[in-house]
Each structure stands twice: as structure tokens, then as C-alpha cells.
């Protein structure tokens, strides 16, 4: 009697539904998280690729500019420019150079009042 009555009972099995719902949520959550994380990984990968590319381009541009500076400041180019602009620079003759010897006895090191008056006469 009891057994038959129990069989025809249409009571809602809350616990079972709850288990299914939770399991589904967990599975769905895990699935969505996986997709989300995969997507994030992809996005960060893309950002990384872009930044690496930018870094390489900047390094390359910097290298190109550095070499350009080297070329423009090379002796060959400077000599050409000097000749082209004819600045009129003349080498100083050997007899026009006066060498001042440093005294080793310590004398003459102190500051002295000097005058340039008559220097150009």
C-alpha cells in the first residue's frame, strides 16, 4: 500500500533539480570561463605581438637614425662640407705656435693680476 502510494506521488524533487542546475551552472561557467580566458589570451597575445612589432620598429628606426648621424658626421662628409662652404680655415704654421711650459717648482701657480693693455700693439 505504502509502496504504491509512493510511486504515484508527483512531488517536485528539489534536491535533484538543484544538483542538475548547479552542475549545469558549473559546467557552463567552466566552459564560458575557458572561452573567456582563451579569448583574453588571444587578445593579450595580439597586444604582445603589436608591442613587440612597435618595439622592433622603434629600435630599427633608432638604428637607422644613429647610422645617418654617423654618416653625416663622418670625416669624409665633414671634409666635403668644409671644402664646399670654403670657410677659409688655414692651418697654423709651426712658427706661429707658442708652447708654454708648466713650471715644476711650484712657483708661478698663484693667481696674479694681469693686464692686457698694449697686448695688441
Amino acid at each position, binding site marked *: 500500500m505504502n509502496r504504491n502510494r509512493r510511486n504515484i506521488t508527483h512531488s517536485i524533487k528539489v534536491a535533484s533539480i538543484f544538483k542538475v542546475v548547479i552542475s549545469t551552472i558549473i559546467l557552463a561557467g567552466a566552459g564560458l570561463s575557458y572561452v573567456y580566458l582563451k579569448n583574453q*589570451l*588571444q587578445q*593579450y*597575445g*595580439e597586444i*604582445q*605581438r603589436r608591442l613587440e612589432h612597435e618595439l*622592433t620598429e622603434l629600435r*630599427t*628606426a633608432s*638604428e*637607422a637614425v644613429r*647610422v645617418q648621424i*654617423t*654618416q653625416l658626421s*663622418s*670625416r*669624409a*662628409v665633414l*671634409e666635403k662640407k668644409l671644402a664646399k662652404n670654403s670657410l677659409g680655415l688655414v*692651418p697654423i*704654421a*709651426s*712658427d*706661429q705656435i*707658442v*708652447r*708654454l*711650459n708648466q713650471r715644476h717648482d711650484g712657483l708661478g701657480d698663484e693667481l696674479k693680476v694681469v693686464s692686457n693693455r698694449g697686448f695688441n700693439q
Partner: protein
Amino acid sequence: MRWNAQARAVTVCFGLVGVFSVFSVRLIDLQIVQHEKFTMLAAEKHNHKQIIYARRGIIRDAHNEPLAENIPVKTVVADASHIRDPEALAAAIADKLEMDPRDLADKLSQSGKGSKHLVLKAEIPEQTAGKIRESLWTSNLRGIYFDQDFVRVYPNGQMLSQVIGFVDHDHKGTMGIERTMQEFLQGTDGFRYIETDRTGKELVPYRGQESPAKDGCDVKLTVDLGLQNIVESELEAACAEFKPKDATVIMMRPQTGEILAMASRPCFDPNRPGEAAPDQEKNRSVTDMVEPGSTFKIVTTSAVLEEKLVTPDTTVFCENGHFQYAGRILRDAHPMGVLTVHQILMKSSNIGVAKLALQLGELKLYEYVRRFGFGQRTGVTLSGEIPGLVNPPYRWSKLDITRIPMGQSIAVTPLQLVTAMSCIANGGKLMKPMIVSNITDPDGRPVANFTPETVRQVISAETARKITSALKDVVSKQGTAQKAGVPGFRVAGKTGTAQKVDPRGGYMSGRYVASFVGFMPADDPKFTLLVLLDDPTIKDELAFGGVVAGPVFARIAEKAARYLDLRPTEPIPLQPGANGLKKVALSARSRE
């Protein structure tokens, strides 16, 4: 059986089972049976090995001024599998690549038939690559990619070209320092395995094995570009004046063997190696040999003094310019009577030095020739060095004992000659010539340091001093190289005027190799300098080393002294000023 609901359900079920079974079989076939095949196909299409190029090392001078650099450039590559509209693509980039749009469109259309990747143009500047990228972006086109590459550039053009050398299309050094230091300069390329999507874009999360590139080491030379510039400009002027077949100048620091400057003519621009003739590419300092002429007299004189067979004051009769030996007559440029050993060197007497050699003997002369480094490679790190030509005594003719002392029947490289003179300047100690100072890694950490290397003590310091004394008088009014004098300094040196060897035998009439090799200041040498002009265009009576090469030596030495800020050791001769008045000349001695 009645076609009731149950039967229909069973049929549908069997149908579904059948369909899914077919799917399953196909899936098993794809995933398991043909797994390898499809993995390979996918990898071939989407996996690539990306090369990360190593930067070639920089070559610098003694003051870290760059001599060889790398300019980054791009190689334009078309990927046929990504090109949808070849005409539109060609129209967008043809002008930037300086190509005809129709030719380019044809090329792009054909590209899928052979190789998937097609190189459109190499060595395009970074700016052009940027413009092409922009153009593709705005036109929403794809299929064009850029590979990183570099072009080797030499900022100083022709200067030091034969010493530095150049690289080929594979970035391998083909001559000069580029070749000898290839192992250090080249670096090691890195790689990275990448996976791309269907548009060719890298999928970073699926990156595979990666090995970073190892950049090449930087090589620092002993060459001082300031001195090199002086040498090159004076050599150019000398070539314009005398129009020689070729010419060589080498400057060396005698105490260490460091090469401070080295130049040859004709030369070439290493930025355009394709335009250079083989003759222009030769570094004559090490690849050519010449009969040294009278500059070689320092060897014989050093030998007899070192062996104490004579003293500088020992007299020798120079036969009044006419000496018969082994059936042949040996002559002096000017008839001379009795000369001391000192004067033999000073006045460059062929007969005098031949008699000294006869006194020395064949074996001893040969021994000293070899001890001075002739007949063997110096070991300098330059490509193509030859040992010169020194025959052993058993191959000498009877005449050779009188010809070798005056620099005939023997062939030496200009580098050997300047090294031998440096030996005299360095108190008889022969140094190994060096041109590479050190090698550093890209972070500046030392990889190798080259230190001066003594080869041997050839003659005693005392003998070297005696020879120097005679060489100082060579550059005097009584000597053969008055024009090699430098105001304010004592110069020691030796002239050489060698008749050119005729390939058909004998010597060519009226064609000479004029040279001067010396050091300065004579008593405390800061540099040894060789000036050698092969076949200068000048009147026969003026074709002497002292007249042709001597003044070139003087001009270079004077400018070098100024550049090195050398203190004058002698009174500087008075020169008329611009206003016609004599200016006061101050010597170091008078100021102290």
C-alpha cells in the same frame, strides 16, 4: 509489421545510428588514421620558422669612430596565398617600389604558380617600407610582407677601404678586416617557431621554440682616423702630382707595432664594391712585393755593426763609383771615394754596402735578412698577406751578395719594410704588426684584447742607436733626403730608388719605385712612416726616393706631429710673415 509509432522510432534511431557511424568512421579516419598527414599539412600552412637576424658587429677606429656600420633595410615579399586582387595591389605599391605597375601585377599574378613567397625587392629603406604599409592599410589590401635585413655601410667612403674590406650579399666578409674578423663580426641568427592565422597574422599563444639572436662583436682597430685622414689626403695629392702606377703609405707606432694609418692607391668605395676593379681592391701594403732598393741598406749595415766587423767610423773605399765583381760592374749614383760606414748609409753608396756584405758573408747576411722579418708573413690580421721573396743562399748567384744589400734580387712587402725600420726605431726590438686593438661583445664586455708582441731582439740597442745616427744624417744637407726634413724635428730615415723589375727579365729603363721610410722624432720616435710610389711620372734625373717620396713624408710627418701634439725638438726655421717681417721662432730648447 504494422508501421506504428514504435516501428518509426526504431527506423529513425537506426538511421541516426547509421549516419553518426559514418561520421564516426570519417572522424576516426581523419583524427587517427590520417593524423600525421593532416598535422603536416596544417603545420606547413600555418607554422613558420621566423629568423631573428643578428646584427653584424661594428668596426671602429682607435678613438671609437665608426668605420663600418649597418643600416636596417627591408626585403619586400609577396605571399600569393593572401593576394586577392593583384592589379589593385600593384597599383598601390608600384610607385613606392619604383617598379612598373603592369610588370608588378604580372609578377604578383604569377607568384602563386611557383613558390608561394616571391621576393619583390630587396634593400628598401625603412621609410619606404612604412609608406607601403600605410598604403596597404588604407587600401585594405594584404599579401605584402617585410623581412628585416641590413646593408653594410662605410661612412668614410674610400678612406681605409682596402683595410676594412667589404661584405658580400650573404653578409660575409670578402676581404680586409671584414674577412679576417668574420667569425667575431657575424654573430648568430636566432629563430622562433610561430603559428599564423589565415590572414598571416601570428597567433602569439601558440608560439613554439625560440632562440634569441646573438649580435656580432665590435672590432676596434689601432688605426687613428685623424692620422689616416692626413695620410689619405697627402697620398691623394702625391698621386695627383706624380701620377704613379700605385702608391702605398703606412704609419706605425714602433714601440708596439700598432698600425696607425695605412693607405694604398688606386682605391675604391666599399659602399659600391661592384664598381671596383680587382686592382683597386688590393691592399698593396701586404699583397704586393717590391724590390726595396736602398732602404734595404739598413739591414746589411745593422748586421756588420752588430757582428762587430766594423764600427761607424771604419772606412771603406767606394771605388770612385765603379766596382767590378763577378764579371759585372756595380755603380754608385755619384762617384765616391773613401767613406765611413756611417757615410755609406748617409750617402747611400751601393758599392760601400756591397763591400760590407762581402765582409759579412752570404750566410750571415741571409740570417739578418730573415731576422728582420723578410721572407715571412708578419702575421698581421689582414687578408691576402704574402711572405715576399727571399731566396736561401744556396740559390743565390755569385752576384747576389752584392745586389741583395742594396735591395735588389729580393722582394718585400711595404709592411715588412716599415716593420724593419720600426725595429731600428725601437732599439732593435722587432714587433709584430697589429691592426686590431680589441674585440668587445655588444654590451661592451671585452672578448679579446690584443697586446703588443715582441718577435725578437734583432740587433742590440747600441747598434740601433748607431744606425739611427746615420739615418738622421740621411735627412740633412749631406744626405740623400734633405726634402724629408720636418721643421722643429729630427727625422731619421732612408731613401730608396729601385729600378722596376721587367717581367721578361732584367730591369726596365727609366721606371722606378721611389720610397722613403723613416721615423720621427729621431731620438724618441712616435711613429715610423713609409711612403712608396711605384713608377712616378717624373724626369729621370729627378726620380729619386728623396725627391719624390721624401717631401710626401715631410708633409705627412709635419701634419701628424701637429695632430699628435708633439713637442718640437729642434729650432724652427724663421719664416717670412704675411706683413713681410720675420716672426720670432721659438724652439723648445729656447723656451725652457
